[in-house]
């Protein structure tokens, strides 16, 4: 069987080459931005090829240089790219074994490889990958017959390998933001206040005065760019342009649209799936309504992009999630043939989904097409990143359940309101400013390979338990009142927050301990092991009475119902605010490539989820997003970070699952459940702020 990415990029030399003596170049189509995938994929390749990790060079991402694997999304790199790279390496190794056997006049079964050297009956044969390289044609497709190493023969996979991408980051040299091609010019964009606004004019003299040096004011429709020799001058020019710009068609967004409940009144389509409606027997029925607000990716570095148009070719430098999707986007917007566009990737700040990274490269490309020759750099400001990058959609999640006489959950309905989780994918914010722009209609449904409808809003909509009867009702609001797109985990983490909060309420209604209640509904042994382990790690049996101001909360989740198993316990203290005392996580994600890297990802997901849970909400006002500084959009700080303890289970024998998105949902729910335990009152609307705590206590009291 040939994995999908390899089937789509079938030439083996697109994945592995031996051009430099003693070196192995590996290429794949996924982007590094701190998740550690360069390192973990290189570990897999080194293991399949039997070469030392240090011999590997990961090919920098650029169109034409790496296989096309689309976007780096969904925490899928280890699963999809990893499978293709392992298969490619296994195929390459088999070809070299056949070539060595022919040259040495022996059977391939007598041969082995140790650090790239071919062994014959365990003795050096004099041949290596590099002596044989000219004799092996890697321009061929895979056969699908080469077999991966069995887990017991993996020696590099499973080792904590220091990340390849980290050293430059501690010495101050790493990012695309720092790239200065010769002759580069700096531009800032005078952005439309809202996509419908049309540019009328600005005070050119004031802009030139403010810049203090030459400024090229580019106007095409409502696309307005200020281009200077230095970034400082462009920044000054923009400030003056913003102060004097005149627009038609500015419209304000009501601040109340920032609340999830406002979604219910907006134009929507409804999609139902699952079992028929329950017969409303005499079983006990419970309902509850949860919500999460719009959440920003809030990347540390505002996005940047560089573009140059010269001799009919457009070159784009980007830190986005995929060079080929960037090429397709640029081709659509500029009208150039994709083959006339080169895209080169550079390191950027963590994006956690579809943040602003796609946009400045398109801004820069639009300028470069109109000002050929010099490279043009567009650096977004912090307020641009907060205001114009897509945000994760708000969600309203109404849950209902029926319990049988023993209190067991037997019927479950999730009704969800959200905008499309991947709404702004394949678009750029600059498009609406261009002459002739027509706003796209509602997104067509995205289909899974089996033809069923995919919706990010339905991920983990049903909790990961043995439930006899279950259904979903999804309300998709399209167009969205603000620009929304993929945020780490899509609907999975919010649905887990809601569902696992609700499970705690059901346990309480059934008069059972939250851990015992869950365990009784999990038959999968791997899920049970994770739940049992988290109880031991967190000393769950010490859990005390409700309403003491101190809380212990649990949540469990199988990622997307089919991936890694993850359980989190949170301990909190609640006075005016929530203080995180400690977080624990037990996780079975199958084969772990880089244990230290996996723990780093799991913990990062937990801390981000804690920040979402306690602090974060995009606020609307004026023509769009009003929370445009870190003061308006606080995130968790160093003095609020609890200790975190993580254990990985079952790390060798099973297929690997992605781990980048699995810990947030359980962590959000565990914190909310701990807060409910501490207060004796449940907060169902994120974030769990001081105001909401006070309101919940008043209502309860």
């Amino acid at each position, binding site marked *: 069987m040939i994995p999908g990415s390899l089937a789509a990029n079938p030439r083996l030399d697109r994945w592995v080459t031996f051009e430099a003596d003693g070196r192995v170049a590996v290429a794949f189509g996924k982007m590094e931005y701190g998740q*550690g995938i360069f390192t973990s994929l290189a570990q897999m390749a080194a293991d399949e090829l039997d070469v030392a990790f240090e011999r590997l060079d990961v090919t920098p991402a650029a169109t034409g240089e790496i296989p096309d694997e689309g976007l780096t999304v969904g925490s899928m790199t280890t699963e999809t790219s990893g499978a293709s790279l392992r298969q490619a390496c296994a195929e390459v190794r088999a070809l070299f074994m056949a070539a060595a056997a022919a040259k040495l006049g022996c059977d391939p079964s007598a041969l082995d490889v140790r650090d790239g050297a071919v062994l014959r009956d365990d003795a050096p044969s004099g041949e290596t990958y590099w002596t044989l390289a000219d004799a092996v044609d890697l321009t061929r497709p895979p056969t699908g017959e080469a077999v991966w190493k069995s887990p017991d023969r993996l020696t590099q996979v499973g080792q904590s390998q220091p990340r390849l991408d980290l050293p430059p980051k501690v010495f101050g040299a790493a990012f695309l933001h720092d790239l200065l091609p010769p002759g580069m010019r700096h531009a800032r964009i005078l952005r439309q206040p809202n996509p419908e606004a049309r540019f009328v004019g600005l005070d050119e003299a004031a802009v030139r005065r403010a810049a203090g040096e030459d400024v090229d004011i580019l106007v095409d429709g409502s696309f307005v760019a200020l281009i200077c020799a230095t*970034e400082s001058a462009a920044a000054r020019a923009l400030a003056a342009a913003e102060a004097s710009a005149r627009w038609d068609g500015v419209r304000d967004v009501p601040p109340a649209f920032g609340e999830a409940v406002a979604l219910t009144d907006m134009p929507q389509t409804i999609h139902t799936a699952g079992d028929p409606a329950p017969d409303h027997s005499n079983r006990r029925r419970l309902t509850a309504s949860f919500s999460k607000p719009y959440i920003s990716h809030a990347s*540390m570095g505002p996005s940047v992009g560089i573009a140059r148009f010269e001799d009919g070719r457009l070159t784009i430098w980007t830190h986005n999630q995929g060079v080929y999707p960037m090429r397709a986007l640029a081709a659509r917007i500029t009208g150039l043939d994709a083959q006339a566009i080169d895209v080169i990737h550079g390191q950027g700040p963590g994006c956690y989904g579809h943040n602003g990274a796609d946009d400045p490269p398109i801004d820069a490309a639009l300028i470069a097409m109109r000002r050929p020759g010099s490279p043009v750099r567009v650096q977004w400001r912090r307020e641009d990143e907060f205001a114009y990058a897509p945000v994760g959609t708000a969600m309203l999640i109404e849950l209902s359940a029926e319990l049988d006489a023993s209190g067991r959950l037997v019927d479950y309905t999730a009704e969800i309101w959200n905008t499309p989780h991947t709404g702004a994918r394949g678009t750029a914010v600059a498009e609406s400013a261009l002459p002739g722009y027509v706003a796209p209609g509602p997104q067509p449904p995205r289909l899974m390979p089996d033809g069923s409808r995919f919706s990010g809003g339905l991920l983990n909509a049903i909790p990961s338990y043995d439930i006899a009867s279950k259904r979903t009702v999804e309300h998709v609001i399209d167009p969205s009142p603000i620009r929304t797109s993929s945020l780490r985990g899509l609907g999975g983490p919010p649905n887990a927050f809601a569902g696992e909060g609700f499970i705690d309420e059901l346990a309480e209604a059934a008069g059972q301990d939250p851990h015992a209640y869950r365990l009784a509904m999990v038959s999968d042994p791997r899920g049970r092991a994770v739940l049992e382990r988290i109880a031991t790690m967190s000393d769950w049996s010490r859990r005390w009475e409700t309403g003491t101001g101190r809380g212990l909360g649990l949540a469990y989740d199988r990622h997307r119902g089919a991936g890694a198993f993850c359980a989190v316990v949170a301990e909190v203290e609640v006075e005016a605010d929530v203080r995180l005392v400690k977080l624990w996580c037990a996780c079975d994600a199958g084969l772990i490539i880089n244990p230290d890297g996996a723990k780093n990802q799991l913990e990062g997901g937990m801390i981000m989820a804690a920040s979402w849970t306690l602090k974060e909400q995009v606020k609307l006002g004026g023509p769009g997003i009003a929370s445009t500084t870190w003061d308006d959009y606080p995130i968790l700080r160093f003095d609020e970070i609890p200790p975190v303890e993580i254990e990985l289970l079952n790390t060798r024998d099973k297929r690997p699952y992605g781990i980048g998105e699995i810990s947030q949902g359980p962590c959000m729910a565990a914190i909310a459940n701990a807060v409910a335990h501490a207060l004796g009152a449940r907060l169902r609307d994120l974030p769990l702020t001081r105001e909401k705590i006070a309101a919940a206590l008043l209502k309860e009291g």
Partner: protein
Amino acid sequence: MTGAIDFTLNGKAASVEAVAGTTLLEVLRGDLGLMGARYGCGLGQCGACTVLVEGRPVNACVIEAAALAGKSVTTIEGLGTSERPHPLQTAFLDLQAGQCGYCLSGILVSAKALLDTNPAPSRAEIATALNGCLCRCGVHNRILDAVALAATRMRDGVAA
């Protein structure tokens, strides 16, 4: 124009011409081509641009270049190199204390300022010293551990 501003940058004499109102970050990344201090917010809210002025952490994005005349400035480039790393940089690599790394320049120099005045900080003291720096990837615990590890090694005189 402000005219020439003379100061000490990473131990060496530096001089720049800057328009009034130009920030230290603009001078570092623009005129001087030192890209280690990051642009994060421009409002002194995130700490990504932190550098040391006279040994104290400041947000380079809000301090005027003109205020530096005669002062000493240390950036991440002055902390250490891959050949001669500062013990903090070694500890951050040993504990893999980073993901995307965009915040690390500011955090590393802030940590240096702390250790220069408090060689044995508690975890709470480290957290307080780094509280002006945001990290979105959630690597805080590793960073706190790495600063503590560097402090221990520096006290024990372990070579980086």
